């Protein structure tokens, strides 16, 4: 098992950040997210917490480093280049926090990635703030911290290679490809797969924060309407396949954030 942990602070109020979270796709950094659907949503009558379950369809290829470790025919031919992500969130508006959990729904035997985030209104200490403090608009002095924890776990070689797919009897687990990797133990292969996942995640987490900041800035300057207009432009940019005007504008103002793009 491998872990990744990160703490980040948004210079926006908790209501704005939680709204941006539900509104974050599409954004200029989310070209790989194809669709988003709400599967379940309710307010718990006792706690008044809002529970949401969503499914995102994302473009993703099994990393070539992992492919090399897998038996022939697995991950390669079947891989449609898309994967489902299950996202559950709980918002407690009175206490000013939101918890989210995202996990991959397929290939969980090869690598299960679970991302947990805890968003917390600042300051954390003290009693409940008055509801007047929950305005969406520019409470520029209000901040929201998010703690992100990602867990990587490979069960490769433990007879649970393909998660649900194996139960359908489509594949049988075989020995890994011969060659360099035969020198690795099962535990070694698991560690390698987990490390590849970890490296990809660092980049993904950065992009997701950049995306959130774009949405938050749109929210601040134009409200929900501003976010929706921005989304329209993002969708057009995807259709055109170009980089779109957002990127030039964004890079001019945020050159320092943009070094990885």
């Amino acid at each position, binding site marked *: 098992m491998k872990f990744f942990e990160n703490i980040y602070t948004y210079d926006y109020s908790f*209501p704005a950040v*939680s*709204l941006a979270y*539900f*509104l974050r*796709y*599409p954004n200029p950094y989310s070209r790989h*997210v*194809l*669709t*988003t*659907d*709400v*599967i379940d*949503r309710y*307010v*718990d*009558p*006792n*706690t*008044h*917490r*809002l529970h949401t379950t969503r*499914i995102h*369809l994302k473009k993703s290829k099994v990393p070539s480093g992992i492919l090399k470790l897998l038996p022939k025919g697995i991950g390669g031919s079947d891989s449609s280049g898309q994967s*489902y992500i*299950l996202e*559950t969130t*709980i*918002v407690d*508006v*009175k206490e000013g926090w939101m*918890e989210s*959990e995202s*996990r991959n*729904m*397929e290939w969980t035997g090869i690598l299960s990635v679970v991302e947990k985030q805890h968003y917390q209104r600042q300051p954390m200490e003290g009693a409940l703030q008055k*509801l007047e403090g*929950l305005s*969406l608009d520019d409470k520029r002095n209000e901040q929201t911290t998010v703690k992100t924890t990602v867990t990587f776990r490979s069960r490769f070689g433990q007879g649970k290679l393909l998660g*649900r797919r194996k139960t359908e009897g489509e594949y049988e687990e075989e020995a890994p490809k011969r060659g360099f990797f035969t020198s690795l133990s099962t535990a070694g292969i698991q560690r390698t797969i987990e490390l590849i996942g970890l490296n990809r995640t660092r980049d993904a987490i950065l992009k997701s924060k950049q995306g959130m900041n774009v949405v938050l800035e749109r929210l601040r300057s134009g409200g*929900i309407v501003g976010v*929706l207009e921005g*989304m329209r432009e993002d969708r057009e940019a995807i259709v055109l396949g170009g980089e779109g005007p957002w990127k030039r504008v964004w890079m001019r103002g945020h050159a320092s954030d943009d070094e990885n793009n």
Partner: protein
Amino acid sequence: MAASIAPECNDIKEKYDTCFLKWYSEKYLRGNTTSNECEDLFAKYKTCLTKTLKERGIDNMLEEARKSTPETDAEYNRRT
């Protein structure tokens, strides 16, 4: 708004999403947590999705995911 996995549900999804955003920002975030004025739209949207979720096997995946990670408010409260 983000597209739906089922293209035929995009219209109803957009209506529901718009309703939710309005409710979330104007009611829920301001402490009015009891109303649920988007329920009818959500029911229609869910009905529209059902076929695609079955076809793609997502309903089964959901079932399995739920079994492996039971999380309720009660458990959450115990943890914190």
